[in-house]
């Protein structure tokens, strides 16, 4: 049975993030700095605005972010 959260996720994939976001090219350019700032516990949203929103809206960039984060944490 489809539940509310599943529907919410499907709607989220369709409608994407509400906030302003960067595109895939800027995301790739900034990804290394973003992940190092994250690992240093810095306020990444303030330092690189729009990238977190892009990661929420773009599954491919999200995967690449998660992999870089995992690799640097390994």
């Amino acid at each position: 049975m489809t539940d509310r959260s599943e529907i919410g996720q499907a709607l989220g994939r369709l409608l994407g993030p509400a906030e302003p976001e960067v595109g895939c090219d800027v995301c790739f350019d900034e990804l290394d700095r973003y992940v190092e700032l994250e690992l240093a516990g810095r306020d990444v949203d303030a330092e690189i605005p729009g990238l977190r929103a892009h990661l929420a809206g773009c599954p491919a960039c999200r995967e690449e972010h998660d992999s870089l984060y995992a690799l640097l944490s390994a």
Partner: protein
Amino acid sequence: MSILEVGTVKAVEPAVPLVAAPPPPPFDLESHEWLRTLRADGATRDAAIARLHTLLLGAARFEISRRRHTMRHLRGNELEDIAAEAAADATLSVLRRLDDFRGASRFTTWAYKFALLEAAVKLRKRAWQGREVPLEPDDWDIFSSTALGPDAASEQRELLAAVQTAVAEALTPHQRSVLVALAVNGVPIDVLAERLSTNRGALYKTLHDARRKLRAHLVERGFALADRLEAE
């Protein structure tokens, strides 16, 4: 007329002395050493490229081991071939873009992302190789009212119906195809880019525009989206 064209001595001499652009952040020693050796000649450069390739092969293998469970049909040697290709392509990308490295991160972090990207793209393409890329909604089930349990609130049913209407009416055919492929059918963006002979950045722009239109369409019809859809 700009202030510099007014003609008085005062106007053409800036009150604050012009300063050169701030120097780039100093590279950490290890990053500096990577750049120095990769830009050197002969044996020093060859050795640095070999070290870089080894580093990137490790990153490509890391990516592949993370995604192994989604690639069960691939044998170990096929996965190793993908890792080798990804490492070779990433090494070339890094060497080509060496001047783009500004020291905003460690050199190795910057280089890793090329290997992770190459490996991820190759795995996604391999997973979709020979499969038709669906541009029409064949998985609207989740949005049909029969798929909703009895608990689904009527407001949510209304929102779902409105979303379907908006997809059908508010978007151009291209926007609709891209949105459906990426956001409903789960086609990876680089796979779709290859099939449509475009690139990832352009496709994401289309997806982004389509999403803006959907949101605007729904807001016009009185749906409050902000409080409902932000949670990931």
